[in-house]
């Protein structure tokens, strides 16, 4: 396990309660006025040079949203959000969309460098990373640069910001946007539909295997700003794509809202692998500040033999409310959900998945590892259901929670709904603390307690880490150890 030594090194370097991505970038910003109204939505739409149909779509969602209530079923507590006290649009001045790397404000490029995300293609090629990863960098409300666009284009893959896609590929966007997560879906998704500002668009045509990993890196920088990104990924018949998203935000005293929607569509024999390393600012040790991460992610296995796999490493955010789901519509389709959710300090996590079996011979697999430390609350909430006609649906769920310290909580709430006698569901969940025997064994071999915990936790989450693309697996392991900093003693 090569990451272990690195983990220990990281642990040594960092003091308790350190969020290493908490710096702020100073760039001149252009913002819409605070608050939410039809005018603000018109402003956003105009900024993006959107066609009329898009504006109407947004306004429809907004009117619907006004009739909805915030959901209350999740095990999370937070003061009521004043949706009129937020900025819904903030972009670096003179940048309302992605541009050539040479025109981007150097401060922004520096920001991404500091975060470990090189945006200059030649640097990536010259860099240590062995394989190429194309990046769409989203800074507050706007995509600032997308790398390797040309190379991808040669392979037939469209990878650009959603704002560009709305202008350049309106037919594709129109055909798929909102077909997986309708504008009426839920409070936050509906809000997102009204005000989303940017995000990524991926289209992999029939028979194409995307030649490199795609990724989007989201950064919230501006104060009092909500980030509402929208991602749409389509894999046509027989296509394959692996996509990764990462996210960070500066350290601030106030809570910031992030309400994203991600839609995936896999047609016959297509496969989409979607990985997330979520590291929004979690708030300080007293629970002050941090991101509210209210996200709707859903994949539609629309075609037969299609496959959608979600992998998530959730270490950040003050509150996480997210359930990346799969609608297994096509016969023989498969959905997977691999999750690690680490909570420390005052973090609250309510996350899991939904596997909706509609087609015949569909299968799903859920592996969830929750780790709670500090005074955090960590809930797995997952639904597995079969439709009456979904013959031979198969699900396997393994859901393990680890508690570190006696002031945190770990909760497991599965919803298992079988409506067909040929369904075969297996669900297992355990909750325990780090084994005293394992810990003692490590200590006896001279490994200090904090390192020993990192070691054991890495073992606990290994099954999920293995599902991440190689380049990110090591990074994710480090992140987990850092997130658990200060959980001992």
């Amino acid at each position, binding site marked *: 396990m090569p990451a272990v030594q690195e983990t220990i090194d990281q642990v040594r370097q960092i003091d308790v309660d350190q969020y290493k991505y908490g710096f702020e970038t100073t760039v001149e910003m252009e913002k819409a006025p605070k608050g939410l109204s039809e005018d603000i939505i018109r402003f956003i739409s105009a900024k993006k040079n959107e066609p009329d149909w898009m504006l109407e779509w947004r306004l429809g969602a907004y009117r619907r949203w006004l009739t909805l209530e915030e959901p209350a079923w999740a095990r999370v507590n937070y003061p009521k959000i004043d949706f009129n006290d937020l900025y819904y649009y903030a972009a670096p001045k003179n940048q309302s969309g992605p541009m050539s790397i040479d025109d981007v404000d150097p401060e922004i490029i520096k920001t991404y460098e500091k975060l470990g995300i090189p945006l200059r293609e030649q640097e990536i090629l010259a860099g240590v990373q062995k394989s190429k990863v194309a990046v769409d960098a989203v800074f507050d409300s706007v995509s600032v640069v997308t790398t390797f666009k040309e190379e991808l284009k040669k392979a037939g893959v469209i990878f650009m910001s959603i704002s560009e896609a709305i202008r350049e590929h309106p037919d594709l966007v129109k055909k798929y946007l909102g077909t997986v997560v309708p504008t009426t879906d839920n409070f936050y998704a509906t809000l997102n539909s009204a005000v989303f500002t940017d995000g990524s668009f991926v289209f992999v045509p029939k028979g194409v295997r995307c030649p490199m990993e795609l990724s989007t890196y989201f950064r919230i920088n501006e104060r009092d700003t909500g980030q509402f990104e929208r991602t749409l990924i389509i894999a046509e018949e027989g296509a394959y794509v692996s996509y990764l998203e990462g996210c960070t935000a500066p350290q601030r005293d106030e809570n910031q809202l992030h309400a994203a929607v991600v839609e995936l569509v896999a047609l016959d024999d297509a496969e989409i692998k979607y990985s997330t390393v979520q590291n929004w600012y979690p708030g300080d040790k007293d629970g002050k500040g941090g991101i509210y991460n209210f996200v709707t992610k859903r994949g539609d296995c629309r075609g037969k033999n299609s496959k959608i796999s979600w992998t998530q490493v959730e270490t950040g955010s003050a509150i996480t409310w997210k359930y990346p789901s799969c609608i297994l519509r096509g016969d023989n389709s498969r959905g997977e959900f691999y999750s690690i959710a680490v909570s420390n300090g005052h973090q609250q996590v309510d996350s899991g998945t939904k596997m909706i079996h509609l087609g015949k011979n569909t299968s799903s697999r859920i592996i969830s590892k929750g780790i709670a430390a500090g005074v955090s609350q960590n809930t797995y909430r997952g639904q597995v259901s079969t439709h009456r006609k979904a013959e031979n649906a198969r699900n396997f769920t393994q859901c393990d929670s680890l508690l570190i310290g006696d002031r945190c909580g*770990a909760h497991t709430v599965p919803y298992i709904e079988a409506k067909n006698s040929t369904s075969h569901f297996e669900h297992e969940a355990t909750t325990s603390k780090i084994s005293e025997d394992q810990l003692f064994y490590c200590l006896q071999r001279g490994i200090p307690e904090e390192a020993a915990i990192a070691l054991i936790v890495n073992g606990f989450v290994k099954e999920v880490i293995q599902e991440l693309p190689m380049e990110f697996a090591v990074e994710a392991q480090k992140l987990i150890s850092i997130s658990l900093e200060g959980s001992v003693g």
Partner: protein
Amino acid sequence: MNIQAGFKPTAAEAALVEAYDKQLGDLPGDGATLAARDALLSDLKTAGLPTRRIEAWHYTDLKSLLRAVPAYRDEMTASRVDPIVPGSTVLSVTNGKANLRSLQDGISVRSYADALLDGSAAERLSERDRDDAIGQINGSFVRDGLSIEFADGLEVETPIEIQSVQNCGQVSTRFPVRFGAGAKATVIERHLAVGDEAALVTSVSDVRLDDGAEITWIIFQSQGEADTHLAQFKASLGANANLRLYVINGGGKLVRQEIHVAVAGEGSNLTLRGINLLGGESHTDVTFTVGHNVPHTTSSEVIRNVVFDRAKGVFQGQIRVAPDAQKTDAKMSCNTLLLSDDADFSAKPELEIFADDVQCGHGATVIDINHTQLFYLMARGIPENKARAMLVNAFVAEIVEELEDEALVESLEGVITDWLDRHA
């Protein structure tokens, strides 16, 4: 009618309110008892019957499922039947009225109507929370039942069957039972219907095990195909007390059996075994919570469901470990055999853990008959339909056998086999 302004009560909600107004005059008790009843009914009126939006009722939307409320009737004709375990001591409640008899020294049996009349029942005539529709309905309408006390150290060999039987109408009963320190006994709480007319039955058992008591409590419900059965079993366990609770459902159109146990004394243990035999159009919901409130307690729960025809089954089970309840060991499993394409089953096993030094887990499966086992039986010459029946029976018999007491095992296996013979 003052159900929340702007909301139109359903027929059943209106009928409940109307029934209360009508029966008020002859419901036993005034003063504190009446005040408690009024408060419960008022909460019910304010919120209405629970819907699926209430998490505790997620799979049983009582508001839409409870279509009608049969009228209360004075002249009901059911009479007691033979006990499940031959030779048991029977305490019968026929048509909602307790038939008192005195038992051996050390067991005191009183009519619950007396406790309503003298007001001593009022204090515990309360709801668990605002969503406690069963507590509200039962508390509003309860007329009788049995208050039973077992003396400290009393060991009773013969099972005691509390038998509540009716043929129609409305029956609301309560059974406060206290087992003294170190008492040992087996109690069978049995609810059944005779005849085909619809009944609404509500029942609350309010059980306390003092330190070191060792009790086997078996709930066997076999209401009629048109009946609504809303029941609650609440228990609190003292130090080193041991409750072995079996819940067997084999009847009813709309059934909600709640079980709420506080494992409240150090060293105490709860063993819950549930068997749901569901057929016809039955909607049966078993909702269970166990609170591990102090260190060093254990619980284990195994629920087996067999679902035929167009039946719908629900199991919600929550293991809650309080902060500081270290060394809790709790395991829950819920296994379902779905035997018809029109049947469905929903399970929500929950862990809610606030202490770290614990071993808790749950498992849930929904399965078909095991094909390897079926092949093995058939390879030995057992025809397919018989082999299937054997495997269904084995699936539930397995947990009955844990009871060890031969007479008890045999009797329960008998009722299960009977049920399966009628439905398979």
